[in-house]
């Protein structure tokens, strides 16, 4: 048996080690601060929301009366408004955003790509109040005079497109949100598609795939978990967006099936009524809505992680 002797000389250099230890301490502190911040926010919201939670219990989430004068609070219309307006936004923004990303990453002529990509990022930087103004003065009249009467006449048999065309309402909120999240979905999806190795495209092309077939089977499939991530980023933004939605959704706490009807979102009600919340219970109810928004966001993100994990997971077995 041969033994290799390892010399016991000290390789440790004290100053460098000290620097490493200090750096590690500082970085650990930075990470800890983040965790503490989240914990502090949750604890603070829980404490303030406690009176409302005691008074209404589960009824807070499942009832739709919002009467500050009688101090009866049910948050269902806000949860409904947030979820529906965000989903509507995704329905419009995903095909548009992913489509634009495919064009930018795969098909567009080389000279047009940088200016277009820059433009997309520019659109993402427009403040949301601008979108809100545009929504009130351009989008809502357009919906009221053209789009909603047309939808009512053609698809009016569906409960989604019934009722008087106000212009402002769930449809306007969904469209505004869609316009706001499209640049995010486009920008991130484009990065995802650009990260797909060229060898994958060549594999498909060499098999005699057309441009579209190559995009579909080599590029989109390769990047699908990243694309889901891009969509989630858009969803996260839609769920939390406050200003633009508040300006166009109509702010009526009702659960209405029709997309023409006004609605309300969690973020909007907090922004609108925070200054008027004179009684402790009213304030407590608003904070509980904040907590609910937090919970909804966490649930959506968790579901999304699950989705990413399941599409990125092992390929399903073929059936013999």
């Amino acid at each position, binding site marked *: 048996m041969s033994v290799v002797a390892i010399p016991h000389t000290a390789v440790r250099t004290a100053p460098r080690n000290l620097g490493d230890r200090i750096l590690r301490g500082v970085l650990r502190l930075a990470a800890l601060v983040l965790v503490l911040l989240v914990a502090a926010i949750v604890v603070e919201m829980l404490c303030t929301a406690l009176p409302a939670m005691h008074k209404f219990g589960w009824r807070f989430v499942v009832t739709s009366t919002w009467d500050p004068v009688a101090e009866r609070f049910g948050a269902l219309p806000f949860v409904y408004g947030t979820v529906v307006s965000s989903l509507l936004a995704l329905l419009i923004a995903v095909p548009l955003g992913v489509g634009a990303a495919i064009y930018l990453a795969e098909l567009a002529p*080389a000279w047009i790509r940088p200016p277009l990509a820059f433009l997309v990022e520019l659109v993402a930087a427009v403040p949301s109040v601008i979108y809100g103004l545009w929504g009130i003065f351009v989008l809502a009249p357009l919906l009221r005079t053209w789009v909603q009467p047309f939808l009512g006449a053609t698809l009016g048999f569906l409960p989604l497109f019934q009722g008087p065309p106000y212009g402002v309402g769930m449809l306007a909120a969904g469209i505004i949100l869609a316009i706001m999240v499209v640049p995010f979905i486009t920008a991130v999806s484009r990065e995802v598609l650009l990260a797909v*190795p060229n*060898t*994958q*495209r*060549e*594999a*498909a*092309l*060499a*098999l*005699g*795939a*057309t441009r579209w*077939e190559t995009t579909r*089977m*080599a590029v989109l*499939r*390769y990047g*699908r978990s990243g694309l889901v991530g891009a969509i989630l980023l858009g969803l996260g933004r839609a769920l939390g967006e406050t200003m633009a939605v508040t300006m166009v959704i109509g702010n009526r706490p009702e659960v209405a099936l029709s997309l023409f009807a006004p609605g309300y979102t969690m973020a909007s009600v907090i922004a609108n009524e925070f200054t008027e919340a004179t009684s402790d219970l009213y304030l407590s109810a608003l904070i509980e809505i904040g907590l609910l928004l937090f919970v909804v966001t966490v649930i959506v993100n968790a579901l999304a992680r699950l989705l990413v994990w399941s599409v990125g997971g*092992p*390929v*399903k*077995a*073929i059936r013999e």
Partner: protein
Amino acid sequence: MADGILVKDLNAWFGDHHVLHDIGIAMAPKAVTALIGPSGCGKSTFIRCLNRMHEVVPGARVTGGVRVEGQDVYAPGVDPVQIRRKIGMVFQKPNPFPTMSVFDNVVVGLRLGGMRERAVLHEAAERALRQAALWDEVKDALGKSGVSLSGGQQQRLCIARALAVEPEVLLMDEPCSALDPIATAKIEELILELRSTLTIVIVTHNMQQAARVSEATGFFLLGELVEFGVTRQLFTNPRDKRTEDYITGRFG
């Protein structure tokens, strides 16, 4: 009658960079032709011109004539997609589709051609995997992801994927450069088995490999075909001084 691959006055560019100069070559059908030369000599570009893969790079350009098994590859009106369906290609790095199973990887070319019948697909998959000497290793794992295989298996999977559509020609661009010696030996064995049924063109950095698997060898240098001839003769008695310098390791 199959007539192999005929190339005449082939020139290729990347933008302003002239990478292939007046290449003319006649490669025999149902035989293995090896192309050797130092990095950057244009041999990979050359085989990518044979199935019109060169032009997928932005700014790339080709002039000249290529006939593959009687078909004029660059005739006006010829769809490059149709050309590529008839010419199989294997790349330097194994590139199976990671989101597809082993089975789906093999039959992807047939599906592109519109084949949907399960029985036909299964038969083709088994035949191609047997041809690629991979069947015994993966027959119980056809549903597993294509990237769950080892590197050598992945490369044979890519060969099976190319063979599944029954091409007349197989182009191999340094197929063993990312593989260990054992996996390399398997691929070489496979090439020797396949050569009675297909026309194979292999680009390689490894001169021993060229000597082992090919009947004819071409030596490329700086975008020119310096010498082309029977493999044994090229390696034992090269006509050109530059070929001799290269194979004896004096440069490159």
